[in-house]
Each structure stands twice: as C-alpha cells, then as structure tokens.
C-alpha cells in the first residue's frame, strides 16, 4: 500500500497518465472523407470555380425572381419612349419599340438558363442510359450501339441542330429537343468508356460474387462511380447549349417573339447597334458572363472531381 502510493507520487510528478480522450489523438487521424465531401473541399479552394458558382447562383436567382424585380412586363411596349437611355425608371433603357431592356434580360435569363439546364438534363438522361447499357453489355451490342454513336458524332452538332430546327420549326420546346438530341452522343461515349473500365474492377466482381443482379450492378455500382466525369461533362455542356440557343435565335431559328432569349435580344440589338450599341452589348455581356461562369465552374469541377487529371 505504502509502496504503491509512493510509486503513484513519483509517477504523478514525472509522468501523469492521461485519458485517451485527452490525448487529442483524434486530431491526428483524419476523419474519413467521402468522395463528394473531398471534392467539395477541393472545389472550395479554387477561387475561380467559386466565383463561377456564385455568379451562377446569382443568375439563377435573377431568372427566378424576374417578375418581382421589375414593374414592367417583358412584352409591354411604350411607343412614346423608344430607345430610352439608362435611367432609374429603365435600368438598361428601352428597345426599339419601348420595351424595358432590364425586364427582357431578366426574362431572357429564364429561357437561356432553361435551355442550358434542360439540354444538359436530356443528354444526361439519354447518354447515361445508352452509354451505360452499351458499356455494360459489351460485345456485339456495344459494337453496334457505338457505331450509331460514331455516325452521330461525326456530324457537327450545329448541322444536326439546324436541320432539326428547320424541320421541327422554331420554338422553345424544339430547341430543347434539338439540343438534347445533338448532345447525348458525347455523354454516351463518356459513360460507356467509364463503365467499360469499371466493370473489370474488383468491386464489380465482388458484387457479382455476392449475387447482385446485372441491373443492380449497373445502377448501384457502376453508374454512381461514373458520376464525376458525367457531372463535369454536363457542366461544360450547359454553356455550350446556351451558346447554341443564342446562335440559333440569332439566325432566326430559336425562340420566337415576343419571348426573348439573350440570343434574340442580341440579334435585335445588331439591327440598331450603330446608334444604340447598348442594346447589343447588354445581352452580349450577360451571355458571355454566363458562359464564363459555367466554364470556370466546369474547369474547377474537373480538378476537384478527377484529381488524376490535375495539372
């Protein structure tokens, strides 16, 4: 008893044993970070990508809140007040028939962004479905399915879209359809390539050994693992789609009046741009900013989601 207490005393003087929790060991062990969390952390460090993300969110808010932001309607004309310059009542002035440019830009944002997102969504849907099946089944089916993709792939997107728009007639829904049809090909290729390499990996074998059905392996094991590249492709596809819509509207194949996408506004602006360059430059700036934001974000996502590609 005495001996022990002396030992105790000594130890207490020199080394005091402390509890494990007090050691702060936890600080040394990195908590397990999931793929998405890790990617988000990398993305947050990328300033340009964050700028892009913030701008996209602002643009989305701008589009969603469009009716609240201005007292005018997008097709409300004010013929006594044409080509008004920037002022408090008309933030960006008015156009050739006295419509408030700010309102038209805000409503244009709805169309342009909708085109981008819907086109990305359609091509995502078809591409994942088609590419997933093609890569998973492999063999002859894959060969035939990819031949079809090759044929589509070798025709420039613009030709497909123009042709479809000529046949389907201009209009917003048809822009969605045409862009969706044109863009799924690239997505299908990427998904197929990913699935092809993933299905040879051990975790697929393990899933198969455990008796998982083919459908389950594809939907629960393979597709989720291809999400990184898919999201990158989709993000970079959105600015492309927005550009194409602007392009189509510009040559008169896009959205029809009185609705106005940014492309239509820019196209209208060209007609009077010698005297009123603002009518062209304002939609132009919005188109460029949007494309820039999505490109920033897409580049950032590529670095964040696919660390192997990092330069």
């Amino acid at each position, binding site marked *: 008893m005495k001996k022990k207490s002396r030992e105790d005393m000594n130890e207490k003087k020199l080394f005091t044993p402390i509890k494990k929790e007090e050691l702060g060991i936890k600080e040394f062990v990195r908590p397990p970070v999931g793929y998405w969390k890790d990617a988000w952390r990398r993305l947050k460090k990328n300033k340009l990508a964050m700028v892009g993300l913030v701008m996209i969110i602002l643009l989305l808010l701008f589009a969603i809140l469009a009716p609240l932001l201005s007292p005018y309607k997008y097709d409300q004309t004010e013929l006594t007040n044409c080509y008004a310059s920037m002022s408090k009542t008309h933030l960006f002035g008015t156009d050739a028939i006295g419509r408030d440019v700010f309102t038209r830009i805000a409503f244009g944002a709805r169309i342009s962004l909708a085109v981008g997102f819907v086109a990305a969504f359609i091509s995502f849907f078809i591409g994942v479905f088609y590419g997933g099946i093609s890569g998973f089944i492999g063999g002859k089916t894959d060969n035939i399915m990819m*031949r079809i993709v*090759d*044929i589509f792939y*070798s*025709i*420039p997107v*613009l*030709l497909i879209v*123009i*042709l*479809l728009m*000529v*046949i389907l007639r201009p209009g917003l829904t048809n822009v969605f359809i045409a862009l969706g049809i044109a863009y799924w090909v690239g997505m299908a290729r990427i998904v197929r390539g990913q699935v092809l390499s993933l299905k040879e990996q051990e975790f697929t074998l393990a899933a198969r050994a455990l008796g998982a059905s083919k459908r389950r392996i594809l939907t629960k094991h393979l597709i989720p693992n291809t999400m990184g590249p898919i999201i990158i492709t989709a993000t970079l596809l959105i*600015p492309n789609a927005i*550009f194409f819509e*602007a*392009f189509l509207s*510009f*040559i*008169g*194949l896009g959205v029809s009046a009185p609705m106005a996408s940014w492309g239509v506004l*820019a196209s209208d602006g*060209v007609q009077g*741009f*010698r005297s009123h*360059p603002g009518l*062209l*430059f304002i939609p*132009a700036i919005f*188109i*460029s900013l949007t*494309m*820039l934001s999505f*490109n*920033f974000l897409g580049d950032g996502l590529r670095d964040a989601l696919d660390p192997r590609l990092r*330069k």
Partner: protein
Amino acid sequence: MKKYIINRIFSMILVLVVVSSLTFFLAKAIPGGPFTKEKKVPDVILQRLEEKYHFDDPLWKQYAFYMGNLMKGDLGPSFRYDALTVNDIIRKGFPVSATIGFLAVLLSIILGLPAGIISAYRQNFWQDNTVMFFSLIGISVPSFILATVFMYFFGLKFKILPIAGWGGFRYMILPAITLAAYPTAYIARLTRSSMLDVLSQDYIKTARSKGISEFRVITMHALKNAILPVVTYMGPMIAAIFTGSFIIERLFFIPGLGKYYVTAIYDRDYTVILGTTIFYAFFLVTANFIVDILYAFLDPRITYEEKK
C-alpha cells in the same frame, strides 16, 4: 495501317449514306411542300412543278432518284432560285468560305501554339495568367458578339477596316480574326496543358543537362510531343471554323457558303439546305479522316492495327 484506312473509308461512306438518307427523309417529313407559298400557286403549275421535280413519284422512287444523283455528285436544283443548282451555289460559295476558313485556321495555329508554349513555360507567371485570361475570354464570348464588337470599334469608331463586304484582303481581316478567336483560345489551352505534361518528363531534363539551348529543348524536344493533342483537335477545329462561319458570313455580308446556307434556312429552300448539309458533312468527315491519318504518321507509337 492499310486495313485501318480501308476501314475508315468504309465507315466514312456509311456515315455519308446515313446523313444523306436521314436528311432526305426528314425533309420529306416536313408538312407543306416547297411550293406552298403565301400566294397560292395555280394547280396546273403546281402539277407541272411536281412533275419537274419528281414529286409525284412514290417516296422510294424519289429517294432512289436523289441518291442516284448524289452518287454522280449532283445535288439537285434550288427551289427558290430557278436558274441555280445546289452545285452552282456550292461552287460559288465554298471558295470564299474556304479562304476565310483557311486564314482562320492559320491564324489560330500561329497565335495559339506560341501562346500556349509561353504560358506553360512561364507557368503561374504573368505571361501565363495573361494568356489564360484571354483564352478564357476567347472561349466564353460567342463569335457573333465578338464580330459586332470588332465591327463597332475597328469599322465605326476608328475606321481602320471595312465593316462588311467582300473584295480584297482588307475585308478578310475582321472575319478571319473573329472566326479564329475560339480555336486560338482552345489551342492555347490545349498546348499549355500538354506542354506542362511534357516539360516535367525526364527526357527534357536529359536534354537540358546535355547543354542543348533552351530554345532547342522547347521546340525540338518538348513541342514535338506536346503538339499531338493539338493535331487531334484539328478535325473538330475545322468543323468549328466552317460551321462558325455561318454567322460570321451573314454578319459581314460575305458571299460564302455559310451565308447561302443561312439564307436557305430563312427561305426554307430545302434542296439547298439538304445539299449543303451533305456537302458540309462530306467535307468535315474527310477532314477528320485526313487528320487521323496524319496523326498516325506523327506519332509512331500509334498503330491502328491493334486497336479495335
């Protein structure tokens, strides 16, 4: 190699047959014939017209007729311009488009490659940042906006260059620069990233330690390998430039094929749309094919025999 080329030629033909058949049937599916105009055409004339263009034949016969003519390189008459055939339009428009296109290709390589090299060589220095900044703008700003901005400043404000029109080299400068903007930016980015890859390789260190001049290391050792991704981009680049010129030609009033194409869209001149689409597809598929073959010659590591 031979087998690969033969394979590629077959798939090229397949692509073209599919494209032309698809466009043919799609055009036939459009409600309203090409002769339904605002002013009603008398029935007799309509009948004669339909006879002339074989519209009264069954669909398969029309298809066979069209494809047969296509084999002979005859793309048919224009519906809007009685005196012109689609071949005439292509013969008139394509050289003009090709001139600007060629200038734009040249420009984007001359500007894009060195920009990318410098950017990679001075990674994270101001040179790099400047190049990357401008290349982002080049990628993000749509060509038709760039075109109008150029027209505004160079044509209207400073009056250095003609705003629009065609005739002489001076008229080609602005359209060529506008067309080249996107591919230049893209090439610069591509060169930069592949150059960064190559510059960190051991053989570059070896070359430097041998005392070879820095210029030689960059141009002879690094660039030779770094240029490969750029060559792969050539196919899509040519496509981008030639389809990009649809709008540029319209804006600058250049009588190229792109302008005819867009005008045909406005006019719903279906044979012209069909014909030029097929022509573009043919041209671009061929360009891709040539680029692929070129690639095999440039990169001895690539043997197409093994690839399947």
